[in-house]
C-alpha cells in the first residue's frame, strides 16, 4: 500500500464505478472509458 484517497471516492463510485463493467462481468474494463487526466503531488 502506498497511500490513500482522502476525498472524492463518492464521485468515483457514482461517475465511473456505477457505469458497470464491460460484458457484465465482475472484473474487466469499465464501461465508462476512464483515464487519468491530471495528477499532482507535493
Amino acid at each position: 500500500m502506498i497511500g490513500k484517497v482522502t476525498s472524492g471516492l463518492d464521485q468515483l463510485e457514482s461517475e465511473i464505478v456505477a457505469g458497470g463493467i464491460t460484458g457484465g462481468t465482475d472484473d474487466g474494463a469499465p464501461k465508462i472509458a476512464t483515464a487519468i487526466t491530471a495528477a499532482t503531488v507535493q
Partner: protein
Amino acid sequence: MAPSRQDREARQARERLRAYEARQQVHERQTTRRRRDNVIAVVGVVVIATLAALTQVYYFSGGPGKAVAKPSSSASATPSSTPSPSATGSNLGAPDPSLAAGRTWTGTLTLNKVALGIQLDGAKAPQAVSGFIRDVQDKYLIGKTCHRLAKSTGFGLIQCGSIDGQGGPDPAYHFGPIENAPADNVYPVGTIAMARASGDAYSNGHQFFIVFDKSSIPADSAGGTR
C-alpha cells in the same frame, strides 16, 4: 623366408585401407556430431522461444493486468502454473527510494472529471511512492487509462497506469520489494496500492489500484501482498 614383394604390397594395402576406414569413421562421427549439435541447437531455440511466448502470455493474462487475485482464488492453489516464487529480485529503471524523502506527500489524481485527493506514505513505501512521484513529475500518468474495474461482494477496485492501456507491463521498468502490505490482507476503502504480477515481489511498475470496497486479497508466494 623373406616376405615376397607381393606379400609386402598386400600388407601395405591393408594398412592403407585400415587408415582410410579409421579416417572415415572419425569423419562420420564428426558429421553425426555436427548434425546432433544442430538438432540440439534448433530444439534449444524452439524451447526458448516457447518459454518466451508462454512468459509473455502469462504476463499479459496473469501479469499486472490481473495482478490482484480475487479473494476466492488463492495463489497457492495453482503452484504449478505460476513462476517460481520470487520474493527477492532486482529493480529496473526505478528511481532511488530517497525521492520520496521518507515523508508524507499530498496531491490530486483526476480520473476523467473525478478529482481525488490523495495522500502517499513515503516512509512506509519509499520505493513505490518514489516511483509514483516520478510518474507524476514526468507526466507519465497523464492520459493513461484505468483498464480494469473489479466489483463483487467484498471486493472493489479500479486499476490504472499501464503503459499500453491494457494492463501490460513496461518491459523497461519494474521494482520491488512489496512495501507496507496489510498483515491481514485486507485493504481498507480508499487504499492506493501497487499492482504486480502474481508470485513476483519485484514486478511492481506503473500500475496501481484504488480500493472503493474493502477488499481482501490473499498473499502469494512472493510474500505479503501489495
